[in-house]
């Protein structure tokens, strides 16, 4: 009989590589790294063909920041699929609870009985609105300088993580409201692409006059969804770790 910890240790030791294999692998990795470094130095730089193209067509993209132009206009297909990847992971991690019990409701509930540490409460009162404001700024500034939907979503999700860690707020991901928020980004993106297809005949090639506005609409919806999905990933994984053993079957 051995304890759980010893059991884990034995399991871990059994999977470890023998020393000579570790040294051999270290040697192979060093050779690989040197070869990669050599290839980077020797090959030099190819002519920046795509950079020139992107700069040339920047006028037609509706935004002034070339990275945003590539992300949401020239290669918006990538961004569409990327939001779909996030949504798929969110669905995988989402707990299989029935959604009809809660119905449409606020998906963030505050348990009033739990009294917060006053310092923590004051910090949250300042930090959360500030993070949302910074997120909005990052979203808006993405059109002109570094920033955009993903950066904004990450900052807003950070505010949610702070709320979640403080322990007073619980995010109810099985409510309809939460599901709408999670899906919003992908669905708005697809709606824009489809309506564009009906009106102009091309799915993701925006008309020059409306490109800026369409990009902003897509980015706002994407920001909301990205923030919600990142927060969902955090809170659900945390709930899985925190849950008592017997209830986790």
């Amino acid at each position, binding site marked *: 009989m051995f304890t759980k910890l010893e059991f884990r240790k034995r399991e871990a030791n059994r999977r470890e590589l023998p020393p000579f294999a570790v040294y051999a692998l270290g040697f192979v*990795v060093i050779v*690989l790294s040197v070869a990669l*470094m050599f290839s980077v*130095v020797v090959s030099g730089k190819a002519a920046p063909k795509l950079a020139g193209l*992107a700069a040339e067509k920047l006028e037609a993209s509706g935004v002034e920041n070339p990275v945003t132009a590539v*992300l949401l206009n020239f290669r918006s297909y990538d961004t569409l699929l990327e939001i779909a990847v996030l949504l798929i992971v969110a669905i995988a*991690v989402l707990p299989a609870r029935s959604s009809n019990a809660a119905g449409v409701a606020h998906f963030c509930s505050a348990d009033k009985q739990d009294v917060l540490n006053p310092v923590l409460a004051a910090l949250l009162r300042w930090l959360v609105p500030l993070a949302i404001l910074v997120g909005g700024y990052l979203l808006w500034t993405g059109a002109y300088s570094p920033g955009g939907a993903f950066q904004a979503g990450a900052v807003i999700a950070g505010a949610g993580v702070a709320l979640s860690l403080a322990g007073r707020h619980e995010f109810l991901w099985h409510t309809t409201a939460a599901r709408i928020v999670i899906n919003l980004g992908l669905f708005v993106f697809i709606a824009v692409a489809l309506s564009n297809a009906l009106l102009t005949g091309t799915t993701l090639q925006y008309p020059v006059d409306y490109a800026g506005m369409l990009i902003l609409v897509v980015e706002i919806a994407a920001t909301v969804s990205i923030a919600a999905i990142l927060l969902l990933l955090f809170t659900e994984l945390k709930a899985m770790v925190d849950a008592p053993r017997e209830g986790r079957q």
Partner: protein
Amino acid sequence: MTQDLLYNATGIALFGIGVFGAIVAAHIIRKLIALNIMGIGVFMVLLATARHGEITDPVPHAMVLTGIVVAVAGTALCLWLTLRIRLLDDVNEGDPQR
């Protein structure tokens, strides 16, 4: 040029450390961290190659931005799977024949 070289060298070193760690580490979470370090190395090399003197190529930047988000999603999925494996391990723990 030296700055580019520094970025490339750091990126490649991180990639090497990640490859080594992902194979050698016994624990799944350590493997996951090593894979993430590997990815960061690739991102650094991509960012370094995006610089062409005066002009910056926006395409690798957009790729890195997309890559970061996909890496976060992949890491979350791996963590979830790790927790599921832990859970099944706990169920089977009493069985020494495993």
